[in-house]
């Protein structure tokens, strides 16, 4: 039996630094992700400034990274490094850290009534290995040649030939090491989430009585565990190609610096297949928890259960399955038989069915509700809007014929920022505003939160909608300046607008950071259940003690969405209230 009560660590280091408590580890992940998010956002803003005013001068950057700047102007190689690192940091070390590892660790035991994760030590190890990966990736800016510059997808030959561009040297090796450590960390975490959800649920907490957040985290863990290993295999082969002279991904006849490489017979396409076999499921690893959080935030602020609960769970499962067999839609222009492309197109468009079910269920959850527009609720509603429009863009990109035109244009950048950037970001904010009182025992400031919401959604929407139009005009991504061609120069006005919006969006996040830090010390004290929510975590003290539940682990008698039930004592019934007190609906 899991008896942690008597083992509560007393020393500061064991309690808050090398902690095995899932709540501390979750918060550690969240704080790490917030720090990395600041770095990655700064990179994004620098990219935007460069694109809007390509002749900008960068005196400060020149002082920090002399290699990045020549004659005061940013080098194209450095721009590519920023693109690469922005994507890598955001996908792996911000969204995955915060949504999957942060909320996963914090919420799973609390929402299923467990005292901790199944393997607390493994959990601690997972965080520290992840942190090591973060440090290595961040340090790569300062190695010879600078950070990796082959995109977050690390396509060979740019990533496989060390002398290809400056970023292909040590920076790429650091990138591979950092991402490898991330995979190790995520695999440990995923194993923990899977075993904990399947095995450690409290009495009465059947699978269908789990909150949708836990459902989405469980599904994320499963697809992560299945899709990361092939990338690990690919990364091993890439390392061997780089450092041991093998030819897995390198074809013959490659010239670099007037020198013919010895490699022969390899194929860069192989990497693309292996990468996207992870890369596409990874999108859902990140996206699904945000959707789960949205459902769980909607319920207490609409005072009604989420619409179509069972269909949502089924749709999540269908999405998980389909996500693993559609990776080829990232490769329509890489060289692919049209028949294979057809398969991937149809598979991709099939995903719109379960996605539409989930989208409709989110919207229908609002119908007829007495909505309370708190800050978490605002972000959850914003998420629905982003999910809707972002999903629509996906239809054009999932169809091979239209993708061939739109591929590698700003349309793609706009699209994936709506879904993988926006839905996850808004899910993250909704979750933080919603569970902050549970984590720290204090409320975040609602007025500042509302200002933060409006200064986030308006620029976000316009910014990435603008990118869609720039992309429809044929402007390609990854270029460090658009001044050389007439057809791209025509969009320079819009580029400037987009940049201003990006700067507003970036600065607005300072309001959130201030609110977060200020509320930690000075926020209004939160009680056990400030939102009058029915799910299990709100029956624990705020913040919950070591072992979560005091002496007696809770027993669950109903599902987590018991709101506005006629004849109930209050308009919500916590999961722990027995059937003898209030009739159970589910």
């Amino acid at each position, binding site marked *: 039996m899991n008896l942690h009560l008597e083992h509560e660590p007393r020393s500061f280091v064991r309690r808050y630094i090398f902690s095995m408590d899932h709540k501390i580890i979750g918060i550690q992940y969240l704080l790490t992700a917030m720090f990395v998010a600041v770095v990655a956002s700064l990179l994004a803003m620098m990219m935007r400034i460069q694109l809007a005013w390509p002749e900008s001068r960068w005196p400060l950057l020149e002082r920090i990274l002399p290699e990045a700047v020549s004659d005061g102007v940013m080098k194209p190689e450095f721009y590519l490094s920023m693109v690469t690192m922005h994507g890598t940091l955001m996908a792996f070390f911000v969204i995955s850290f915060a949504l999957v590892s942060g909320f996963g660790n914090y919420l799973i035991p609390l929402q299923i009534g467990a005292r901790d994760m199944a393997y607390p030590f493994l959990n601690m190890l997972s965080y520290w290995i992840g942190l090591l990966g973060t440090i290595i990736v961040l340090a790569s800016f300062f190695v010879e040649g600078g950070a990796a510059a082959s995109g977050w997808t690390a396509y060979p030959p740019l990533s496989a030939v060390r002398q290809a561009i400056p970023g292909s040297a040590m920076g790429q090796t650091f990138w591979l090491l950092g991402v490898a450590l991330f995979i190790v960390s995520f695999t440990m975490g995923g*194993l923990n989430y899977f075993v904990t959800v399947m*095995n450690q649920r409290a*009495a009465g907490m059947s*699978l269908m009585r789990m909150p949708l957040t836990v459902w989405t985290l469980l599904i994320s863990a499963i697809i992560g565990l299945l899709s990361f290993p*092939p990338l690990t*295999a690919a990364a091993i082969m890439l390392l061997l190609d780089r450092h041991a002279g093998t030819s897995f991904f390198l074809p013959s006849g490659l010239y670099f610096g007037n020198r013919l490489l010895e490699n022969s017979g390899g194929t860069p396409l192989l990497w693309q*297949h292996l990468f996207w076999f992870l890369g596409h499921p990874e999108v859902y690893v990140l996206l699904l928890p945000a959707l789960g959080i949205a459902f769980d935030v909607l319920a207490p602020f609409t005072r009604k259960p989420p619409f179509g609960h069972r269909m949502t769970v089924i749709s999540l499962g269908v999405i998980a399955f389909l996500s693993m067999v559609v990776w080829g839609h990232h490769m329509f222009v890489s060289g692919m038989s049209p028949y294979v492309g057809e398969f991937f197109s149809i598979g991709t468009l099939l995903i719109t069915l379960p996605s539409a079910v989930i989208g409709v269920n989110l919207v229908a959850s609002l119908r007829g509700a007495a909505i309370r527009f708190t800050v978490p609720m605002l972000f959850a509603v914003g998420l629905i809007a982003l999910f809707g429009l972002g999903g629509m863009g996906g239809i054009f990109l999932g169809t091979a014929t239209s993708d061939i035109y739109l591929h590698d244009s700003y349309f793609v950048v706009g699209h994936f920022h709506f879904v993988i950037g926006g839905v996850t970001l808004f899910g993250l904010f909704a979750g933080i505003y919603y569970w902050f009182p549970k984590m720290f025992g204090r409320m975040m400031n609602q007025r500042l939160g509302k200002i933060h919401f409006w200064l986030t959604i308006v620029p976000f929407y316009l910014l990435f909608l603008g990118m869609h139009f720039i992309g429809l005009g044929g402007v390609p991504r990854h270029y460090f300046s658009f001044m050389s061609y007439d057809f791209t120069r025509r969009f320079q006005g819009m580029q400037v607008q987009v940049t201003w919006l990006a700067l507003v969006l970036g600065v607005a996040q300072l309001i959130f950071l201030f609110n977060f830090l200020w509320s930690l010390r000075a926020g209004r004290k939160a009680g056990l259940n400030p939102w009058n929510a029915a799910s299990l975590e709100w029956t624990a003290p705020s913040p919950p003690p070591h072992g979560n539940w005091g002496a007696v682990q809770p*027993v669950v008698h109903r599902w987590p969405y018991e709101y506005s039930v006629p004849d109930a004592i209050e308009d919500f019934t916590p999961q722990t209230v027995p059937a003898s007190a209030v009739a159970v609906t589910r």
Partner: protein
Amino acid sequence: MSATASVPESGISIQAVNSRCADVVASKEQLTLLAVLATVGMLFAGFASAYLVRREGMDWAREQLPGILIVNTVVLLASSAALEAARAAHRRGRSRDVRQWVAAGAFLGLAFLCAQFVAWRQLAAQGVYLRSSAHSSFFFMLTAVHAVHLAGGIVALGYLVWRVSRFQRLHRPDGLFDGTVVYWHFVDGVWLFLYFLLLSY
């Protein structure tokens, strides 16, 4: 629903009451094993698909694999048989036999690793190295990755031998023991698959 109460050793008068949901069907160890097998399986599936793609390359040529590999394969199969004998002994409650058979399995595993190293040396003596050809790249890489996974199994077996020596017996049923045996058979099967793959074509 099961509820157990227990008093902590430290003497603090807190009685923790823990309970578990009734629809939990698999133990922690079984679920862990499932996740580990799925993850390791997908890793080798990734390698295997890369192999199948790469061998269509224009430059593909197969190296002559050392004959000792057949001996190695038999040794590894024997180690699996030893662990099955350990399992049978565990079922009958003979702890001494369990320890001997687990130790035998670990020893045979170790022998396999050494013999794999001999195979590497034999290839190198013929002038075949990691970078010599795509086939040799795959051979060295796949045997190395497989060896790492087998080494993990040997560590677990070593720990089990230590535990039987220390406490004179295993739990009944013992999740770690059962899981390690299944994992061992799995890694054993992975070798058969890799060997077949490397010989084919």
